[in-house]
């Protein structure tokens, strides 16, 4: 219980800071919308073929915006040696990572909702037709992005070229997750029934989330040292 409380405390702290300053929220939201806009120049939104891969465009925009969010996640602890204080505190490193991931998850969820709204306007997509399944996919995929971003955000904290390194490491790791999310979202946005293939992709999302969260919790104590 103490572990859960610590994780939620970290998450609340991060979200409180974010609510006050809105630094990564504003930047990431603006970035996501600009990317979606650029996509609509590159791929004709009116064409039927574009609608078939619209899920891909959405998740790409979110993945890129996500980089801004998890870059900020741990780096906000650098000034005033906040990270040292956090690591010296009784909070378990695994709780710290999960707490950070929860914070990133919430911020990404806000950006996702905004993106869906804007995306629906640009591409004339009725994304509200399958709310339950779409929410499930979004929750699973966003958690995957958040946990990978949190772990590697923590690890790359002191690097020289942090802002460059983080995307280079994180995006290849996110490939299976993004692939699965894109496939299922394409089906849902086209309002087709979920095929057996899509159910397999959902399974991939679940497996990815479980495995990577477990790895993050198991390895946090070993890899997050001063």
């Amino acid at each position, binding site marked *: 219980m103490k572990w859960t409380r610590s994780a939620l405390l970290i998450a609340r702290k991060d979200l409180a800071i974010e609510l006050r300053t809105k630094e990564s929220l504003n930047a990431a939201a603006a970035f996501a919308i600009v990317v979606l806009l650029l996509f609509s120049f590159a791929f004709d939104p009116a064409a039927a073929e574009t609608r078939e891969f619209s899920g891909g465009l959405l998740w790409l925009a979110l993945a890129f915006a996500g980089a801004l969010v998890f870059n900020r996640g741990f780096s906000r602890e650098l000034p005033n040696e906040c990270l040292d204080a956090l690591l010296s505190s009784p909070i378990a490193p695994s709780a710290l990572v999960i707490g950070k991931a929860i914070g990133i998850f919430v911020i990404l969820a806000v950006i996702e909702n905004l993106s869906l709204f804007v995306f629906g306007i640009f591409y004339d997509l009725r994304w509200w037709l399958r709310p339950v399944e779409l929410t499930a996919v979004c929750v699973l995929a966003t958690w995957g992005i958040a946990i990978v971003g949190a772990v590697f955000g923590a690890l790359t904290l002191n690097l020289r070229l942090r802002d460059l390194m983080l995307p280079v490491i994180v995006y290849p790791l996110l490939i299976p997750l993004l692939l699965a999310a894109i496939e299922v979202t394409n089906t849902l946005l086209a309002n087709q029934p979920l095929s057996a293939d899509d159910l397999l992709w959902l399974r991939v999302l679940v497996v990815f989330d479980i495995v990577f969260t477990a790895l993050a919790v198991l*390895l946090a104590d070993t890899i997050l040292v001063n």
Partner: protein
Amino acid sequence: MRERVTIGLAAAAILLLAYSLYQIFLVLPDEAMQGAIYRIIFFHVPAAIAGMIGYFVALVLSILYLSSKQLKFDSLAASVVEVSLVFSIVNLITGSIWARIIWGIWWTWDYRLTSALVCVLIFCGYLMLRQAITEPTQRARLSAALTIFGCVDVVIVYKSIEWFRTQHPGPVLSIRTGGGHIDPAMERILYLNFVAICLLAAALILVRSRQETTAREIDSLRRMANAM
């Protein structure tokens, strides 16, 4: 002693490769449907398997590093990853050239190719990461974490796309199919080449890990010089 082992491994590899090249070009007949290009398989498949095995060896070494904190495991893991990356790139290039002739396309998104490419991307990131960190303990920790996450990720990619239709040729080695899919003479050369590539890989890994140790030695001597 170490140099002798390295030279011995390299020599054995070269001899085996020379013998297999002779067999491939002068003894084995052309394949019924593919013509001459099929001979690429004798380097494509062993390189692929050697690369994959290498990454999992690096995974084991990374776990050993995290539990024992001895930097020698980290040096060895980095060397293994680098050599595996070389063989993975060989795998992708030879596969692409073969595919151009047989399928008419340079690339396709089936599970083996996709997971091979994801592997190369993740472990290129690994090497870039190592270059960006100068402090040895931090570098070792980060590399170990990335290897563990990377290998798990590759398994997920492999398994997830495998569930779907694939364009890549199915298994031909008789350990997987029980025989009958490939001429035994060809299969023998395949295994021979695999052994040769493993020996070559071992020699390269020994050289590379020696270089890592020397680099650490230089680092500590520099610190000593600065302290004096």
